[in-house]
C-alpha cells in the first residue's frame, strides 16, 4: 500500500517536472508570463486603495485583512493551477473523449489526468500571494498557517473544479459551466464575506465553497481558533473525497472518442 502511494507520488512529481520543463523551453515567454501575472494581480490593489479612501473598513475587513484575503486566494488558486491545471479543463477531455491515453497507463487515472498540465502564469499567482502575505508580516506562526491554508484552499478549488468537471460524464455543456462556476468562486473569494448576507452568505459557505477555502482561513489567521482550523481541514478532505468518488463513478459511463493521441 505504502509502496503504491510512493510510486504514484513519484509519477506525479515527474509529471510536474516534465510539464515545467516543457513550459520553460522558451525562457523569455516563461518569465514574461510569470512576471506579468504578478503585475496583473498587483494592479487590482488600486481598487482597494480607492475603496479604503472612502471607508475605514470594507465588509468588516481592514486593509491588512484584505491583503491576507488576496494573498490566500492568489496562492491557493496559483498552486492548484501549477499542480493540477488539468482538473480545471476536465470537462473538455471528457466531452471530446480524450481520456483514452490516460486509461491505458498502468497508473492511477485521476492522478495522471489532473497532473498532466501546468499553467505557467499560475506561478506568478502563487509568488504574488506569498509576497503579499509576507509584506503583512504575519509572524512565523501566521506564515505557517498561511501555508497550511494555501494547501487546503488548493484542495478545495481543485476538488470543486473536479466535481463540476466530472458532471460532464452525465451532462453535456458542463465545460462552460465548470469554467464559469470556478471563476465565480474565485470572484466571490476576492471580496470580504461581510458584504454578503442572508441566503447569498449561506450559499457561499455551503454550496460554492468560498467560505471554507478563503474566508474562514483568513479569520483564523487574524484570530486563531483551533476548532475552525480543523473544520477547514476536514471540509477540504471531505470535498476532495467526494470529488474523487464522483469522478470514478462517472468514469464508468465514459465513452471514447476513438481519437488517436500520443502523450509525450
Amino acid at each position, binding site marked *: 500500500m505504502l509502496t503504491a502511494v510512493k510510486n504514484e507520488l513519484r509519477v506525479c512529481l515527474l509529471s510536474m517536472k516534465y510539464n515545467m520543463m516543457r513550459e520553460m523551453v522558451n525562457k523569455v515567454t516563461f518569465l514574461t*508570463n510569470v512576471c506579468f501575472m504578478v503585475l*496583473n494581480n498587483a*494592479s487590482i490593489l488600486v*481598487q482597494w486603495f480607492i*475603496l479604503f479612501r472612502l*471607508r475605514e473598513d470594507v465588509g468588516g475587513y481592514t486593509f491588512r485583512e484584505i491583503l491576507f484575503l488576496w494573498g490566500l486566494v492568489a496562492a491557493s488558486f496559483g498552486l492548484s493551477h501549477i499542480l493540477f491545471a488539468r482538473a480545471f479543463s476536465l470537462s473538455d477531455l471528457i466531452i471530446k473523449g480524450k481520456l483514452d491515453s490516460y486509461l491505458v497507463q498502468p497508473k492511477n487515472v485521476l492522478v495522471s489526468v489532473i497532473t498532466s498540465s501546468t499553467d505557467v502564469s499560475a506561478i506568478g499567482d502563487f509568488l504574488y500571494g506569498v509576497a503579499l502575505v509576507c509584506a503583512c508580516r504575519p509572524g512565523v506562526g501566521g506564515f505557517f498557517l498561511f501555508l497550511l491554508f494555501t494547501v487546503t484552499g488548493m484542495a478545495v478549488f481543485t476538488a470543486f473544479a473536479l466535481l463540476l468537471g466530472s458532471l460532464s460524464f452525465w451532462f453535456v455543456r458542463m465545460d462552460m459551466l465548470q469554467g464559469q*462556476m470556478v471563476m465565480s468562486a474565485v*470572484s*466571490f473569494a476576492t471580496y470580504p464575506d*461581510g458584504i454578503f448576507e442572508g441566503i447569498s452568505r449561506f450559499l457561499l459557505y455551503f454550496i460554492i465553497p468560498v467560505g471554507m477555502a478563503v474566508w474562514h482561513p483568513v479569520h483564523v489567521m487574524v484570530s486563531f481558533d483551533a476548532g475552525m482550523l480543523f473544520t477547514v481541514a476536514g471540509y477540504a478532505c471531505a470535498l476532495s473525497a467526494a470529488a474523487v468518488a464522483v469522478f470514478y463513478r462517472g468514469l464508468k459511463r465514459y465513452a471514447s472518442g476513438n481519437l488517436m493521441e500520443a502523450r509525450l
Partner: protein
Amino acid sequence: MEKYRDKNGSRNQRGWRYRGGSYKPWRKYAVIYRSVLMENLQYAANVAMGFLTYFVFIFIFVKLWGYMYRMPGELIAGYTKEQMIWYVMMTEMMFFGSNAASVAGEAARDIRGGNIAYLMNRPYHYALYVLSKYSGEWSVRLPMYALLAVVLGTVMVGPLPRFRLAAVPAMAVCVVLGLTIHAVFKLCISLFSFWIEDATPFQWLYDKLILVVGVMFPVEIFPRTLQPLLKMTPIYTVCYGPAKLIVDFSPEKCLEILAAQILYLTAGFVLMNLIYRKGVKKLYVNGG
C-alpha cells in the same frame, strides 16, 4: 491599369477584381461582417451561457456598493448608489458584450501559428478583416447583454434616475465607438506577436488597467490630481465616456466624448497600420 483587365471583369490597380459598377472597397468587409453575424446568430444560446459570470460580477458590485453607501441619498464622487451601480453594469455590459479578448486572441494565434501567411495574401487588410469579424460578434452579444443589464438593473437597483430615452441613439454611437477603440488597441497589442512569441501578458495588463480604472469606478472617484491624466488614457473613450453618458447624459459631455473618441480612433488606426506594416516584414513562415 489595362494589364489587369480580363474577360471576367476589370481589376483595380492592386489587381482586385470587380464586376461592373463602382468599386467599393468596404463591401468585402460588409460581407465578412454579415457572415460572422449570421454564424453568431446560430449560436446565440452559447452567448447566454455567459450570463452567469456577468450576473456574479453585478451581484458582487451591488453588495459592495450597498455596503459602501451607508445612508440613503448619500453621494460618492457625485454619484448616487443607483448611478454607481448602473455605471458598473454598463461598463461590464460593454466588457462582456464585446468579447474583444477572443478576437485579439485569434489574431495572436494567427500570427504565432503561421495562419497569418494565408490570411495576409487575401484581397483584404488583415487588421480590418479581424475588426469586421469582431463587429459581427458584438452585434449579437451586445444587445443580449444590454437586455440582461436592463432587466438585472431594474430588478436589483430600480430604474436609472433621470435616464433620457431620447438620447439613446447618441449613447449607442458612443458605445460602438468605444468598443471599436478597445478592439483596435487590443489588436495593436496582439500584433506585437510578430516580434515576441506571446503577447498575452501585455493583454492582461491592458485589460486590468481598463477593468480597475475604467470598469469598476468612474474617473471622478480617483484623486483630483490623477483625473486629467486618466482622461487622456483610452479608459476615457472606451469605458468611462459611454457609461457616463448612459447614467448622466448631457449634450456638452456627449460632444466632448465623441470628439475624443474620433481622435483616439484615428490615432489607433494609424498605430495599428504602422505596427502591422512593420510586423509583416518580420514574418518568417515555416512550411509544413
